């Protein structure tokens, strides 16, 4: 029982800040053997990386099945091999379909386990706390403990609940969260289902979750649940429109509904859509936070007002499923955002050397980090503010931008001028539209930033980091 005495006591915030170690200082404090092993591992990784880099640069991998820069190569070779062997053509589809499905499931499932920990730790960093750090090293086993706790809990069904419809929603809401990963392109030839109508499919799949949310709230027979459900449904229905219009602007430029074509267009013209359509990117980001119920738009499950919104009455692993879907959807929106606006797997020619899925994954997690940042920073909007923002601001401006883009895309395609002129002109025009349009529209609907709020107060101004520094200096 010595561990209980050795365990670090729960300390006040100031002490925890003092004890905060950087990663480098932790590495320096390691014993000699561990540092030796670490050095050997690092050296081995560097050598292996150099070897792979040499193979890639000299072009010895091109066209081989083990060319891991694009897993589509392996699939194509497998298909050719089955054709030569005379195996039925359905077999490669079945095998690759199963493997791809398992890959998507394990990506999302793995993230559901790690993501809970990562998000809590990150938000703790933003708020100068420690976050979960008791279970396992750095608190890494916390999600497993949470999952075990959720599994053990009794799944209650309220007496007044509609039995069938109370059972369905956790499953219904999980299906679109998985299906949405289908058309995401991970590399030029690597995509689970590269649909011709990928953009419409994305919008359609995201609209399926609305019904599950409503059913969850309605069948619970609970005021808070129904209120949360109606709020969420109203919000999701409203914000689907700006999302669709901003995606339509992208489709006008690229001339294709296929996600891989959209990425290929951005790679070919060496421009990211966020540069070309800044207002569209903002609309998509803001509206998708509303679609997936994340702060600053999580009014549907505002814990401080209506308990937990539409899943108030759910307990045990069913509630866990709702939370998990929320986390998985955030990652999915990160993938969509990086596909549509950040060039997907392309990185200005670097995708020829680095596997595209690594670039895509890095971008996805960067966008996800942005979501966590927003969650740690912003308070939530009121419901009427949110709806007014969608209907009075985002939708009209998106339509105006769509008209601009319609003209610009015709110029880009038909004028015959070099791309740098037409696309550069479009970038300038859209940036000007964003700047002027947002100001003018805000004035027109009677919102003037000058009259309204005081300038934002940074954390430094109210204690925060400065207080931390003072404690450091004092000790």
């Amino acid at each position, binding site marked *: 029982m010595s561990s209980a005495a050795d365990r670090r006591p729960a300390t006040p915030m100031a002490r925890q800040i003092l004890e905060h170690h950087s990663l480098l200082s932790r590495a320096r404090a390691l014993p000699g053997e561990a540092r030796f092993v670490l050095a050997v591992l690092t050296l081995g990784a560097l050598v292996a990386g150099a070897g792979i880099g040499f193979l890639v640069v000299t072009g010895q991998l091109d066209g081989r099945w083990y060319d891991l820069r694009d897993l589509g190569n392996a699939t194509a070779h497998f298909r050719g091999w089955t054709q030569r062997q005379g195996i039925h053509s*359905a077999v490669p589809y079945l095998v690759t379909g199963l493997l791809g499905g398992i890959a998507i499931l394990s990506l999302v499932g793995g993230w559901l386990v790690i993501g809970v920990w990562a998000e809590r730790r990150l938000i703790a960093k933003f708020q100068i706390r420690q976050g979960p750090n008791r279970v396992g090293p750095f608190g890494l086993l916390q999600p497993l403990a949470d999952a075990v706790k959720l599994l053990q809990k009794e799944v209650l069904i309220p007496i007044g609940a*509609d039995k*069938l*419809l109370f059972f*369905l929603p956790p499953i219904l809401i999980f299906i679109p969260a998985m299906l949405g990963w289908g058309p995401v392109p991970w590399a030029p030839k690597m995509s689970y289902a590269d*649909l*011709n*109508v990928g953009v*419409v*499919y994305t*919008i*359609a*799949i995201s*609209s*399926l979750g*609305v*019904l599950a949310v*409503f*059913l969850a709230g*309605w*069948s619970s027979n609970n005021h808070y649940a129904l209120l949360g459900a*109606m709020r969420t*449904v109203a919000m999701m*229905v409203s914000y*689907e429109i700006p999302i669709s219009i901003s995606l339509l602007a992208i489709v006008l430029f690229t001339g294709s*509904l296929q996600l891989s074509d959209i990425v290929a267009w951005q790679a070919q013209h060496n421009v990211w859509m966020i540069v070309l359509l800044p207002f569209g990117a903002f609309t998509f980001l803001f509206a998708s936070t509303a679609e997936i119920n994340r702060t600053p738009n999580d009014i549907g499950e505002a814990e401080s007002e209506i308990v937990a919104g539409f899943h108030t009455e759910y307990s045990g692993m069913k509630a866990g499923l709702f939370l998990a879907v929320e986390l998985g959807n955030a990652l999915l929106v990160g993938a969509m955002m990086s596909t549509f606006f950040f060039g997907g797997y392309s990185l200005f020619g670097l995708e020829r050397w680095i596997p595209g899925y690594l670039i895509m994954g890095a971008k996805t997690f960067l966008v996800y980090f942005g979501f966590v940042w927003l969650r740690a920073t912003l308070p939530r909007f009121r419901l009427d503010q949110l709806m007014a923002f969608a209907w009075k601001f985002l939708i009209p401006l998106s339509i105006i931008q769509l008209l601009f883009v319609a003209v610009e895309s015709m110029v880009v395609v038909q004028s015959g001028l070099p791309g740098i002129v037409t696309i550069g002109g479009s970038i300038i025009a859209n940036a000007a539209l964003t700047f002027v349009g947002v100001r003018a529209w805000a004035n027109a609907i009677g919102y003037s930033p000058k009259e309204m709020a005081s300038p934002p107060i940074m954390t430094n101004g109210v204690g925060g980091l400065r207080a931390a520094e003072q404690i450091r200096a004092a000790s």
Partner: protein
Amino acid sequence: MESPGIILAFWVLSAITVAGCAMVLVARNLVHALVFLVLAFLGMAGLFLTLSADFLAVAQILIYAGSIAVLMVFAIMLTPLAARDNANSLYLLPALASGLGMAAIVSFVALVTPWAELKGDALAQNDPPTTVAAIGDLLLGRYVLPFEVASVLLFFALLGAIVLVHERGSRESQ
């Protein structure tokens, strides 16, 4: 249509669609009926997919399973008679008559339409990789008038909804 997978998919999806529609009629709870209707919509989308009508399938999911279902949710929530455990069917005869009429019209159109029956290589040649471009051409070319009429109709429906719910506070105060 020869491959066994397609035939299996056709029968399974048809069974889902028909069962969903039947349950819509049988279910006494309106929200249950709505869920079964969405199931039928999804089955229809699957049937479109087996006919390689990709855009139509996705539009079916987007418009019917996504939007129309939510519209019905709002209609149910806003109608006092349609609360929980509603068992009233006030418009049984008109509903039956209009349903039969619709069925008659659709069957008539399906029977008189000269379907191009292609098989094997001819089918493969005439199967376009995507139907989006063809649908777009038809909508803004040959069928531009019905398309525009439909959009004007929807626009007036929108205006009508706004006029109906508009609070005439300014006029009453005069």
